[in-house]
């Protein structure tokens, strides 16, 4: 970490080719201290991006987990719906941006939709594969002990797929941050992605770097929150 910062400082100060436009560490810090720390607009960018990721991610889980469970447990439903999932899944989330802008009435909704679509297919596929991977012994034993189908679903199938849900959430939150930044650069007037982009447009190197560090930090904080949720979901994993 210290080595990386030192290298950055050195490369810029020595004027190594390609680094002329990059601000020094000190300049970035000063810019942050003077321009952003007390700026309502800067913190508003955090709030806006977090809201977009939050809504998109939460809705993707609320819809994706039940859909994955249905696909994994209902044969007929699987046969009808799974081919559609397989068809749409390889489309990168950012490829949805133009259609999303055309479809949704506001830019805000279209960006939230993009942060939704990214983690959505990931969680659906993970939950579906999780259900498919349940050990048959776990289901058989429940049948032998007299459990009814509803009990088997609630007490065996759902807990069995929690680890798959956790994997899907970890991958999904990262994708959600990836796409929100890109979508903001393309189609928004607010958010951390927009802040960084504005820095580029106005040739303000310090703003670009402050934006990048803020995005990294925001992603890291979201990952912490997701891991906390995962640990709470799996008390048996210590």
């Amino acid at each position, binding site marked *: 970490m210290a080595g990386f910062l030192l290298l950055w400082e050195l490369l810029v100060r020595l004027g190594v080719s390609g680094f002329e436009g990059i601000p020094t560490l000190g300049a970035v810090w000063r810019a942050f201290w003077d321009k952003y720390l007390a700026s309502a607009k800067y913190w508003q960018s955090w709030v806006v991006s977090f809201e977009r990721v939050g809504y998109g991610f939460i809705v993707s889980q609320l819809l994706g987990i039940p859909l994955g469970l249905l696909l994994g447990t209902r044969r007929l439903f699987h046969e009808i719906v799974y081919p559609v999932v397989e068809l749409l899944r390889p489309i990168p989330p950012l490829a949805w941006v133009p259609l999303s802008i055309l479809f949704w009435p506001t830019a805000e909704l279209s960006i939230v939709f993009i942060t939704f679509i990214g983690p959505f297919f990931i969680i659906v596929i993970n939950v579906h594969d999780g259900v498919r991977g349940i050990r048959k012994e776990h289901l058989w034993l429940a*049948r032998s*002990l007299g459990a009814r189908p509803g009990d088997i679903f609630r007490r065996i199938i759902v807990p069995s797929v929690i680890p798959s849900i956790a994997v899907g959430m970890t991958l999904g939150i990262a994708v959600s941050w990836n796409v929100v930044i890109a979508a903001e650069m393309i189609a928004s007037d607010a958010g951390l992605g927009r802040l960084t982009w504005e820095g580029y447009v106005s040739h303000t190197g310090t703003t670009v770097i402050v934006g990048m560090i803020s995005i990294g930090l925001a992603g890291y904080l979201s990952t912490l929150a997701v891991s906390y949720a995962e640990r709470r979901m799996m*008390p048996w994993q210590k």
Partner: protein
Amino acid sequence: MAEVIKYGDIAASGGKMRGRVCAAGLRKWYHRPSQPPAHVLEDCSFDIEPGKLTVLMGISGCGKSTLAYMLAGYVRPDAGSLTMDGKPIEAAGRDRILVFQETALWHWMTVFDNVIFGPMSSSAMTESAARAKALALLARFGVLDFKDKYPGQLSGGMKRRVELAQALINNPKLMILDEPFRGLDVMTRELMREYYLELFEETRLTTLFITSELEEAIFLADRVLVMSGSPARIVKSVEVDLPHPRKFEVLISERYVTIKEDLMQALYGHGAVEAIVPGEEVRA
């Protein structure tokens, strides 16, 4: 207070002789996608006597687990008849509990919740009765201190004892143990054998014990069924008349050696199937 429960109380209910299994002419083909169909069982016939510990022996992969799954009601035979106490076995049920090769304890439930699952989900007893019985069984199996732990925190031997408690709380008529001690280390395995034998001799709970180890088979069995061939059937049935209660000394007795040779002949001997003398043939 928990310690006073006797194994007798655990299994005793209903008639004395329970768990008589009759299997006749069982056939099974497995059809799996992108694989040639496998003919696992053909004309497989045997019976399991109530109150006896019957061992099913055969080399790995010969179809022993398939037979266990049929008895438990998870897999249906393509032909033949399979009954317990005169009633055909058609689905899974609490009267026949299978302890799987790999532990099937639900790792997301505590030990206690695993054990109490049967009575709670079948509403066979009141919650307080089920809780009391679960605690008593856990105490009897020496795992009461671990009741709030998760299975992942237990040793292999402890998991097996929890699975026995999980099964016995349902008063099954038949216990099916599919190579239950295979993954355990040698010491634990020997302890568990003695442990199960002790439990069996106290409860006389009709048991089918599946193993691919000759020594284990003879040490435990009242009778050994030898399964062989592809498709497999029961090729030999050997009464093991070694004295009870069995201790490890029986493994050096002369009678043990005779039985062992007999079984080895059936398992590996040249033309094992043809070598059966009419008098020794298995009852169908």
